[in-house]
């Protein structure tokens, strides 16, 4: 079943085969969790968000049309959930101008057996710099530079014109550069 197309698995799910949806969860769990983590900044929140995204996707599966990309449809649900969640509680960032807090975060990540990320200062600083971007800029940067989407694909997920998506990406990249520049200088870059 693991080799079956998304559309076939969706049809099976709609005909009552819940196990088929389990294959979809396994297939997309990393992408959805990673998006949620980079958007929300906290592992527990990301876990909760990713679960809710899959449950929402399951409930709304009948509205998915095979003419579009399932991955874009699913990530649109994830993006929407994260944006809603951020309205209630902002990104859980460690202040990047506080070296002690960054060092503590790095040590925490290194001692967490499940957190195979954020173990270096550069990773923590980059993650937290992402968190200081406006939500839409961060979302576009995550889709394009972490999920490897083209601007066109990101525009499909966001339901926005490609030009608007590019504009968010450019502003986000410019801001990231400013935020990370001091750390680059410290490293002689």
């Amino acid at each position, binding site marked *: 079943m693991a080799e079956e197309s998304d559309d076939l698995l969706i049809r099976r*799910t*709609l*005909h009552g085969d*819940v196990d088929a*949806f*389990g294959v979809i*969860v*396994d297939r997309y*769990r*990393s992408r959805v*969790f*990673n998006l949620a*983590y*980079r958007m929300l900044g906290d*592992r527990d929140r*990301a*876990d909760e968000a990713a*679960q809710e995204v*899959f*449950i929402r996707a*399951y*409930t*709304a*599966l*009948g*509205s998915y*049309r095979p003419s579009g990309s399932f991955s874009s449809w699913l990530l*649109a*649900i994830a*993006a*929407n959930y994260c*944006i809603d969640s951020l309205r209630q509680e902002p990104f859980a960032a460690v202040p990047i101008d506080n070296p002690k807090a960054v060092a503590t975060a790095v040590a925490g990540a290194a001692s967490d057996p*499940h*957190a*195979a*990320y*954020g*173990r270096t200062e*550069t*990773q923590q600083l*980059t*993650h937290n*710099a*992402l968190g200081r971007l406006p939500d*839409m800029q961060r979302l576009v*940067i995550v889709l394009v*530079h*972490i999920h490897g989407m083209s601007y066109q694909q990101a525009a499909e997920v*966001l*339901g926005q014109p490609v030009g608007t998506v*590019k504009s968010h990406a*450019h502003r986000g*990249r*410019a801001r*990231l*550069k400013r935020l*990370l*520049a001091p750390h*680059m200088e410290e490293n002689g*870059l």
Partner: protein
Amino acid sequence: MRCWQVRRQLLRYEDGDLSPQQAAQIQGHLRACPACRGELARGRTAVAWVEALDEAEAAPDFSDRVMATIRSGQVTEPAGQRESVLPLWPVAAAMGVGGLVLAAFVGLWAVSVDFSALGSTLVAWGSDAGQAAAAISVMGKALVLLVEAALRVFTTPALVLIALDLLLLGVTLLLLRLWNARRRALRIGTMLAM
């Protein structure tokens, strides 16, 4: 070009959005200006650091927890599957055919066919093979009447009503389809409104 002009175009230059002439001007400036080269390098480094972020992995039991929630019965079953299983066009076609059959009956009624005579002859054909020739003759007559009815029905007010009815039905189905598509687009748009 001045530095501020180049820096304003650097991201578009990186994305390949500039014309060859504009790109050549930027390249020319970059060759001569270490400060702008540094700016370009810092921008590339920031993107490289983002792209090098480790993939955040979900917990090993993540899928099991999601599926346990779904199987618990607390989650609504996928909605709208009826909509996806039953496309609108076959329904419209079936209703259209039904409308045409209705039109034929109205036409037959309009030309005042003697249904009782036709019916009794058909019954006789079923019980007595000897009257097959007569029955075939009646069937032929019925066929002629049907064709005649079909021709006549196109001139009766009933057809106008039926045609209008079918037209209205078609437009309604089309609007329903468009409305469904718009509702879906709005749903995605609303989800992403920020």
